[in-house]
């Protein structure tokens, strides 16, 4: 280790000062600067604006282009006649089996069949896949009894949606961590790093950067959390919100831990090179680690075994475990275990990263080899 990161001596120097900067204070100042700089950059707001706009587009456009009429399958001409006059897109089918098939293929939202038990005041029953189709029911006046084909707690569609939303959010924020690499290279390129290192411990620099960018990420999550209900209610899709909300409880802590894990690696990627132009070469590994979980979960979401494994691997667990919790495929202890694994590897990576960061920060010229960064810290 260089002399700059030796433990602070308790000894106070002999000249008067405003107390000196503690590790915590230095970390806070570094974090504060990162946050301020990013809040002022156009790129940050454009990025956030694009995400929010995308959110609104995704929520509103389907109802604009989708025609808004829920489609139902009607079994037999009598039922079709009964549904005439309602604002439903009715597809008449010959029997109940055909209706069920359409349901399972998600061609229709519900099927309406004649009631043979006499329970229904309107003489029809409603068949649905996994949830009572509220928009269809609203058109039927007096609510008929509902039979669910697939009484799972979570529908396949809802699960897909959660996977997509979580993966996308993870991807956006994981890639956003690249800003840490950029800010580190800026400091190396301009040699500010010499002043910084001579003033505060290297670990405070690294910690400050991670804390600052984690706060920025959390801030964006909050903005999205506020914007999402608005967007969904504007688009008339409050139903989706109800679906996703309970899953967020697990997702947010996983997302934050996953972000910090990648943040430490982004910082090292930045410290290895001396110029913005060279950043691409050192970022590729982190890029893979950020993109990997997204693609892995998207591709293997139907494969229970792979999802099981993914939900424990530190990088992909940030998406896979909350998804499994959402679809009730995993017990809370599994989520806690996975979170523990994530936190453990986080601690390990941060330790490794701070050594590599310290070892490479002051080396200029070409790209610093990891092994050289490791030994330089001695």
């Amino acid at each position, binding site marked *: 280790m260089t002399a700059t*990161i030796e433990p602070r001596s308790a*000894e106070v*120097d002999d*000249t008067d*000062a405003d107390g000196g*900067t503690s590790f915590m204070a230095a970390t806070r100042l570094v974090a504060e600067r990162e946050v301020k700089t990013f809040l002022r950059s156009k790129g940050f707001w454009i990025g956030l604006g694009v995400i929010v706009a995308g959110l609104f587009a995704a929520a509103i456009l389907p109802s604009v282009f989708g025609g808004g009429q829920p489609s139902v399958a009607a079994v037999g001409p009598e039922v079709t006649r009964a549904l005439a006059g309602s604002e439903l897109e009715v597809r008449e089918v010959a029997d109940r089996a055909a209706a069920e098939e359409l349901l399972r293929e998600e061609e229709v939202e519900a099927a309406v069949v004649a009631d043979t038990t006499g329970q229904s005041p309107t003489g029809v029953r409603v068949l649905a896949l996994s949830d009572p189709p509220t928009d269809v029911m609203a058109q039927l006046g007096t609510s008929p009894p509902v039979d669910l084909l697939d009484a799972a707690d979570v529908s396949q569609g809802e699960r897909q949606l959660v996977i997509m939303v979580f993966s996308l959010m993870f991807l956006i924020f994981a890639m956003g961590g690249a800003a840490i690499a950029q800010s580190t290279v800026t400091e190396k390129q*301009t040699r500010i790093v010499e*002043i910084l290192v001579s003033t505060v411990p290297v670990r405070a620099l690294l910690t400050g950067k991670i804390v600052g960018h984690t706060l920025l990420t959390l801030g964006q999550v909050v903005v999205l959390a506020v914007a999402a209900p608005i967007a969904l209610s504007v688009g008339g899709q409050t139903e989706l919100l109800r679906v996703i909300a309970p899953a967020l409880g697990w997702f947010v802590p996983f997302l934050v831990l996953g972000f910090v894990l990648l943040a430490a690696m982004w910082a090292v990627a930045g410290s290895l090179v001396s110029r913005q132009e060279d950043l691409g070469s050192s970022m590729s590994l982190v890029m893979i680690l950020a993109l990997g979980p997204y693609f892995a979960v998207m591709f293997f979401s139907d494969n229970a075994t792979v999802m099981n494994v993914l939900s424990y691997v530190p990088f992909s667990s940030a998406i896979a475990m909350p998804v499994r919790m959402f679809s009730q495929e995993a017990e809370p202890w599994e989520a806690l275990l996975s979170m523990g694994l994530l936190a453990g590897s986080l601690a390990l990576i941060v330790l490794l990263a701070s050594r590599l960061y310290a070892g490479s920060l002051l080396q200029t010229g070409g790209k610093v080899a990891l092994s050289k960064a490791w030994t330089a810290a001695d």
Partner: protein
Amino acid sequence: MLTVTTISRSFGDHRVLDDVSFDVRPGRMTGFLGANGAGKTTTMRIILGVLAAQGGTVTWHGKPVTQPLRQRFGYMPEERGLYPKMKVGEQIAWFGRLHGLSQAKAKRNTERLLEQLDLAQRANDNLEELSLGNQQRAQVAAALVHDPALLILDEPFSGLDPIAVDTVLRVLRERAADGVPVLFSSHQLALVERLCDDLVIISGGRIAASGGREELRERYGSKRWELVVDSDAGWLRDIPGIRVVSLDGPKAVFELAEHTGSADGERTDQRVLRAALERGEVRGFTPVVPSLDEIFKEAI
């Protein structure tokens, strides 16, 4: 006082510093002279803890220099740079706080410094919008904002126009007058000659000479006098104990062959003066002060 004692440093097989020792005294401007690659920047980086020494110590008032102490030092690295997209005033205040100032004090000091360095009207501009000379002034401000107990400046005047040199110099002198030891490196000898009280000359990683400027002049400067008389001064060639360096009609420069006086105890220079007066009017008789350039060449 900052004391550097026998520090050494190698990069691979290349020994960059070899048993380097010197002092930087309070209230003095100490010039750190050396050719490119002599080890100036490496020495400064070691003092600031940016680089670790391999052997040797750096002490401040007798105590080893540690991180909290170092935080009170002001450093201007050779390769300049501040955050390009941060406002000048805000940035300097931020560095002040990083060095342990309170927010209010950092702000006060920043305003005062920008005023002194003629940068006040640029405080709200991003650093990258400033000219290179002004960026350099901002860099000086960043090194001074926390009222450092010691100043280490690597080539502080390179890239500055003469007016900026005077501005920066005034600010540095002020600090030195307040009792702050100032160590600055340069290869512009004429400038250093004008500025420094003490000198440290480094060559090939070793200290070639160090001490007060006058003391070094005494030690390394040759003893030369310039004599101006009314008529031709050619007779000088016949005076024993001196060597004529140049002769141009009534104007001659000579140096003493020996540093001490002649056998009868009379100093040779006085003997020459007497001889000149015996021959007619003497218009000028002045010791020639050796330039730093000469001292430098002599020392290394």
